[in-house]
């Protein structure tokens, strides 16, 4: 059934790229059994035949001579940064049995003592179910999550009922980016967005990039607006203030029908509710009467002013929002952001006009609102303390202009009406994502049950986000201090290099040393493998088999087009022989489940979670490999004819979307919030648990309307540490993951990608020469070194440090010592973690000196 790896043949094999998280369809040329070329798959809807430079460098990773080729056992009991583990090659059986015994012991004692960290999506639905079947809640992307969108996912779930968002580029006329490099081989659907933005720009779409650094996205934009880091919320709130209170540009119909803007709020901040049903009330200003928000006979909603209901003076949420943001005047915000007041006024006017409120477009014979304006952001503006309030502030721009899930605006990805999802409305009338994965709620509504922490990411006290990953390292170091009722003992770490990408390596090392036993699965011996007790070789993505059926929350485009399902398939054999067929690390986890005695639980869980029926139901006692599981799942989803064999041949299956799936807004009545009543209740519950745990968290961000608040770094008023250091992503590497790829490294050297950016004038003042070595020192005494690039293209108060480099593992010689160890600079503590989003502040005050 698997591809024939025959000699003498010359063919192009369809599979998926895994050089970042966007999974472009690729074709790999296999000649005489050797993979020799990669190109974009023209038949793949994700990237339509194009790929970026990273994707084209895949073969250098595949044929990397430093690949792990056999299981390894540590013989040096001492663990530490740079300490040689003194690896000993051992047999697969010895490695598997050693790990299986540990798993058995933990499973019998308390399965929660096991941690599983991963960063991979192919076959995610296999290995996540495997560790859930084991019984531990500690299954997550882990502390590397601090580089993700932080507030993005919960906000996308709240406003789009999807895990990510995308822009309707064919119709959008104005794109405002805040801390995002969309369009420049980065961010969500990187390659697809690059091509779509190029077309939209040629058509006349205006693009404005707000960022402390002149990014590659700024290069293709009409305007770059430099901003002081961590002040995006102030900028967004000033725009909002201008739109609502001065220009009076907002989509009143949208706000009344599709948001909680007309809900009546009592002086204590809670909704005025109907006593019997507890439904939030609105005021029908035609009937002069309070009615439940969903009453069928509402003639018009009171939107401004106030009204007395049962003797209580209430205001519509919209009025509270308008009043709340009045202090964000362009003049005040100019002081905060360094953006001139006139520029703020100009942008407010521009986006207000761009949204074309009232305009419509007819698609497939149906008239829909047309709002050709989009605001998008990613890590840049979200890796901060107060990140969730910043995200809400930015999102409200799209909300008040009615530009969500309608043509021209920001769209769900995938659709709320996608194959695996179904829309739902919560008791307060707000949208809840349906479907398998989001049924438990992972957005800002509804309030999830708050309880004593049981998981090391403290997700139990993060009621509006699926985890608080920035806490992991602190909790691992001292679990009792956070009320964790057990001591973690073992970690299985799969393709995530937590030592380099999760904050200070010293802190991470201290946390990992607390664990008795660490298993790492990887293609190379990286910095995290240095702390492992057992290492298993992993297959490279061009050697792997997976069925990518998990389209719910992935990289499906919003808007018209198709849903797609793909596979990865082995182009070549892995450089090692395992005693079981290993076509993916999933096979290794299944083997461990079998040896540790939890195969029955695993198969039973797959039967439920994959909804397997009839002939595809798994025998709980039989061991299936990734190959057979993929085949059964595919046939169960698409019918007998669409099994793995079909996918191996065709690579991708497409399903046309209908109009409702493309632009769902007007097809359902679920509302989105402009006012967060649930935060008040959330605050009460979290503070109750924190009191019990004697944990002092500042919960003041649990407020129903957003504000800008300064990052902790702003409070350091030292003339010595006078520059703000930020971290940014680079187009030619995926985090630190690809740093060992020599083609990408060659590009990075040629393009000075590893250099630290400092404003030319600032550099001159400090006696720093372009291209010289400099030292960055934080007020807590951490020092890192790197080469400097003096440029006009960065804010004068800012030092920009690229990527997650400065790696030290001897098993990755290409990456060794190149670039800056940016993670070291981060300060992890209660004052730098956002308690709503789990974000870790990436903004640090530094002193810069020649090295």
């Amino acid at each position, binding site marked *: 059934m698997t591809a024939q790896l025959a000699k003498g043949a010359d063919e192009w094999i369809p599979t998926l790229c895994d050089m970042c998280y966007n999974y472009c369809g690729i074709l790999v040329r296999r000649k005489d059994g050797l993979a*020799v070329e990669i190109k974009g798959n023209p038949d793949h809807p994700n990237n339509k035949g194009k*790929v970026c430079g990273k*994707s084209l460098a895949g073969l250098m990773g595949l044929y990397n*001579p430093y690949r792990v080729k056999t299981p390894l056992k540590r013989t040096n009991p001492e663990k530490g940064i740079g300490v040689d583990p003194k690896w000993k090659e051992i047999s697969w059986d010895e490695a598997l049995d050693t790990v299986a015994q540990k798993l058995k012991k933990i499973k019998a004692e308390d399965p929660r003592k096991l941690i599983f960290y991963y960063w991979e999506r192919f076959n995610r639905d296999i290995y996540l179910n495997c560790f859930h079947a084991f019984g531990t809640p500690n299954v997550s992307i882990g502390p590397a999550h601090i580089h993700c969108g932080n507030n993005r996912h919960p906000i996308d779930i709240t406003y789009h009922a999807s895990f990510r968002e995308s822009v309707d580029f064919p119709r959008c006329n104005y794109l405002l980016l805040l801390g995002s490099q969309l369009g420049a081989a980065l961010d969500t659907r990187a390659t697809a967005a690059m091509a779509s933005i190029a077309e939209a720009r040629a058509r006349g779409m205006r693009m404005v990039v707000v960022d402390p650094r002149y990014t590659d996205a700024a290069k293709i934009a009409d305007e*770059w607006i430099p901003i002081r880091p961590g002040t995006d919320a102030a900028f967004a709130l000033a725009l909002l203030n201008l739109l609502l209170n001065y220009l009076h540009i907002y989509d009143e119909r949208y706000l009344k029908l599709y948001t909680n803007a007309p809900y009546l709020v009592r002086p204590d901040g809670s909704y005025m509710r109907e006593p019997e049903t507890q439904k939030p009330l609105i005021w029908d200003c035609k009937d002069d009467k309070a009615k439940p928000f969903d009453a069928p006979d509402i003639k018009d909603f009171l939107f401004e002013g106030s009204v007395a209901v049962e003797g209580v003076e209430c205001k519509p949420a919209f009025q509270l929002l308008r009043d709340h943001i009045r202090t964000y005047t362009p003049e005040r915000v100019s002081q905060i952001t360094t953006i001139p007041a006139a520029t703020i006024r100009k942008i407010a006017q521009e986006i207000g006009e761009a949204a074309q409120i009232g305009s419509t477009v007819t698609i497939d014979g149906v008239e829909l609102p047309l709002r050709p304006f989009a605001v998008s952001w990613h890590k840049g503006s979200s890796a901060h303390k107060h990140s969730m309030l910043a995200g809400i502030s930015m999102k409200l721009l799209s909300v008040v202009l009615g530009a969500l899930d309608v043509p021209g605006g920001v769209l769900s990805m995938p659709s709320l009406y996608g194959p695996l999802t179904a829309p739902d409305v919560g008791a307060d009338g707000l949208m809840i994502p349906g479907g398998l994965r989001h049924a438990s709620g992972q957005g800002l509504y509804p309030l999830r049950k708050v309880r004593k922490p049981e998981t090391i990411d403290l997700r139990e006290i993060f009621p509006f986000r699926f985890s608080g990953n920035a806490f992991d390292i602190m909790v691992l170091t001292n679990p009792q201090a956070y009320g964790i009722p057990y001591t973690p003992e073992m970690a299985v770490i799969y393709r995530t290099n937590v030592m380099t990408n999760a904050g200070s390596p010293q802190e991470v090392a201290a946390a990992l040393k607390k664990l008795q036993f660490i298993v790492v699965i990887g293609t190379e011996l990286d910095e995290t493998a240095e702390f492992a007790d057992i290492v298993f070789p992993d297959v490279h993505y061009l050697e792997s088999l997976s069925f990518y059926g998990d389209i719910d929350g992935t990289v499906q485009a919003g808007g018209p087009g198709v849903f797609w399902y793909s596979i990865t398939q082995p182009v070549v054999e892995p450089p090692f022989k395992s005693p079981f067929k290993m076509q993916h690390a999933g096979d290794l986890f299944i083997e461990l489940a079998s040896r540790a005695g939890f195969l029955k639980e695993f198969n039973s869980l797959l039967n439920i979670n994959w909804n397997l029926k009839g002939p595809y139901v798994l025998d709980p006692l039989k061991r299936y490999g990734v190959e057979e599981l993929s085949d059964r799942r595919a046939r169960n989803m698409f019918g007998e004819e669409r099994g793995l064999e079909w996918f191996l041949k065709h690579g991708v299956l497409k399903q046309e979307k209908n109009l409702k799936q493309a632009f769902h807004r007007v097809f359902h009545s679920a509302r989105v919030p402009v006012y967060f009543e649930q935060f008040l209740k959330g605050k009460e519950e979290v503070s109750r648990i924190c009191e019990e745990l004697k944990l002092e968290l500042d919960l003041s961000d649990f407020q129903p309307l957003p504000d800008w608040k300064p990052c902790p770094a702003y409070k350091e008023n030292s003339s010595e540490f006078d520059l703000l250091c930020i971290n940014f992503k680079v*187009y*030619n590497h995926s985090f630190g993951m690809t740093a060992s790829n020599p083609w990408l490294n060659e590009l990075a050297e*040629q393009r000075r990608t590893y250099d630290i950016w400092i404003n*030319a004038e600032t550099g001159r003042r400090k006696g720093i020469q372009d291209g010289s070595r400099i030292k960055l020192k934080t007020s807590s005494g951490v020092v890192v070194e790197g080469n400097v690039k003096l440029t*006009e293209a960065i804010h004068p108060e800012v030092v920009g440090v690229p990527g997650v480099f400065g790696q030290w593992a001897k098993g990755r010689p290409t990456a060794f010592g190149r670039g800056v160890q940016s993670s070291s600079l981060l300060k992890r503590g209660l004052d730098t973690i956002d308690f709503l989003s789990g974000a870790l502040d990436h903004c640090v005050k530094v002193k810069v000196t020649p090295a």
Partner: protein
Amino acid sequence: MVIDTNRCVGCDACTLACKMQNGTPPGVLLARVLEKEEGKYPAVKRTYLPVLCFHCENPPCVKACPSSALSKRPDGIVAVDKEKCCGVKACIAACPYDALYFWEDQKGYFGEDLTPVEQYYYRRHRLGTVLKCDFCAERIKQGMVPACVEACPVSCRHFGDLDDPKGPIAQLVKKGAKQILPEAGTRPSVYYISNSGGRA
């Protein structure tokens, strides 16, 4: 070839598509992207310039070569004959665009031992000779466009016959696409569209 620099985001897909297609060894980038910064903060402008051999009408490299290894073919491509090249590097010095490379070190990307795919790539070259872009002559023969043109995710490269007055390339040149360093007198066959406010 006409390259629209307004669309370019500098993603280096061209650079690596070229590297893969031509199997070039370390240090050799027959296609690459240059960066330029102009102006003062905050009124700064950064631009990208994807470069390759310009296949000049009046190629100084051809004139400089003492062993006639370089030639201007009838189809306009400036090609190197690796069997004739004797490695004096006069062509490299003569090119005002730094478009020619020399393969002088057998080392691969991971050191002395070449990986299987590098063995496949490098056996088509001859150590101690010049490497240069030939507009992917083999691909053109098969009716395809050069690898860099096909790979560009934002479609900023246009390829065709410059001498066909009705063809798209001549039309773009007529509309104002410019050569680089025209004062060098080399008459490049690669033109650039730029300075139209970021729009194509």
